[in-house]
């Protein structure tokens, strides 16, 4: 069953814990700029929206990668960047419609979310429950129940 990183921006308080744990897990430093999840802000409405990889079915980053470093594994549904092949040309960074793929200027490679190999630390460390890692089915079920509660309350 395909699991998705479900982000409920209604619950996000913008603490950026996810950015910290992500960069710590992947790069060994607490550096939000090296995080695979970034909290974007809708300043006017006052929302905090964590944005990570959507693991698209037809990913733009894979389409534009001229060296085949970005590849989608159809079995796991994950799109990963092979750092050994990445030439750091920034094509994926510019192509991602969500501004997700980012570039590490120190190591000279692009990076993106790899779902921590099946155990996303951002979801684990999100204390408000804004980020969860669950199957599509349970995510939909949650949404349905929420709608039901809301309808009943009216």
């Amino acid at each position: 069953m395909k699991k998705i990183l479900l982000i409920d921006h209604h619950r996000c308080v913008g603490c950026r814990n996810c950015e910290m744990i992500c960069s710590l897990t992947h790069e060994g430093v607490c550096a939000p700029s090296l995080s695979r999840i970034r909290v974007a802000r809708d300043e006017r409405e006052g929302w905090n929206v964590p944005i990570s990889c959507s693991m698209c079915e037809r990913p733009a980053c894979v389409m534009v990668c001229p060296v085949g470093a970005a590849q989608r594994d159809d079995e796991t549904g994950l799109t990963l960047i092979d750092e050994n092949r990445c030439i750091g040309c920034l094509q994926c960074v510019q192509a991602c419609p969500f501004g997700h793929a980012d570039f590490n200027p120190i190591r000279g490679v692009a990076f993106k979310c790899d779902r921590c190999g099946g155990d996303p630390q951002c979801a684990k460390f999100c204390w408000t429950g804004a980020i969860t890692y669950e199957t599509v089915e349970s995510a939909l079920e949650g949404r349905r129940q929420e709608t039901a509660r809301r309808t009943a309350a009216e």
Partner: protein
Amino acid sequence: MVSIVIVGNGAAGNRAAEIIRGYDPGAAITMVAREESPEYSACALPDYLSGWISREQLFIKQWSDYRKSNINIISGVNVARIDAGQKLLVTEQGDISYDRLILATGSRTFLPPVPGHDLPGNFAVKTVTDIDAIMAHRPQRAVVVGSGNIGVEMAASLKVRGCQVTLVEMRGQILPRIFDPESAGRIRGMLTTHGIRVFTGEELMAVSGCDRVEKVSTSQQVIACDTVVWAAGMKPEVEIASQAGIEIGELGAIKVDPFLQTNRPGIYACGDCIEAVDMLTGMPAQRMLWPNAKRQGEVAGLNCIGCQVAYEGAISLVTSEVFGVPVASMGLTAAALTGQPVQVVEGECQGSHWRLLLVDDRIMGMQAIGITAGLGAVMAMMKNRVLITDFRKIVSDPELAQRAAWYLPAGRFLNAG
């Protein structure tokens, strides 16, 4: 401290040393080289012969560069054997112990066993000393045997030097491994208009002369000459490897796994001496080209210090300039694709000509004469195995085309057919 020994001072060996030094400033790197010169570009040797560049410009490194990056280089030394059990490299100047060994022994010119191939006036084309020898010989009438890209470039360079040049090729066309007969015919025309005599389908039978080369006999005729330049192929240098019990593949080169390790743990190999897989076919192949050697050196170096990097495969990429006209070949030729449904897309524009080979909607090879701009996109599509239908989808959709702008230059070649 890990001690790494690299045999060979060519493109692969030096790239391996550089990449190891980049990752591990503390590793002890020793290079053992047969040649008495710092790294130079073997690809530029014909340009040196023609006088296009000076001898100094050939050299990529100076001796001081090795010292600067703390690489111990022992040059002018032949390796006698490898003692894989003791992890020792036995040379004529003493033994060198290693923790990891990288073999980048390269290749040597293949000299067919024809009579007279050892007469003075016979030259190989491999090292800078070979070219020095040709220049000191002052050739007047030269026969170049073999018409690979080295043969063609040597013929053109000798012509520029004012020689009378004859090119002899055993097979039915020139550049048989990298060009299809149609494109090769055009290049042949360029050579003949500049006064190079080209004979194809003729085997060299003998070189004769009293105490030096005076003439060569082919299967068809006798050609008077004072110089014979051998460019009839290269053979990988595998003697010390095979003596050490390292497995040799069917093609006569060192067999390696995807991490470029030989069957002996701790011994890696890269460059001309290995049997790499072809990126497009996945079959073992020998692509003795500078870019492949450099990438293999990189991969071997990385694996040797513990990074797990699989080699993606070798690909043919040849460019050269024939009397001012650039010619380029990449990927496979129609002959290499025999048995598969090959679709040919040919085009011509302002004196340039190109030929694309498609199999199952994917680009498998391309040859171009007179044009090189935009070929990079084709190369990237070929390496990524992009379907032409996907390509057309991308370029016809403005939204996608803007995101993947680099695909667009390939359109000028693909839309012609």
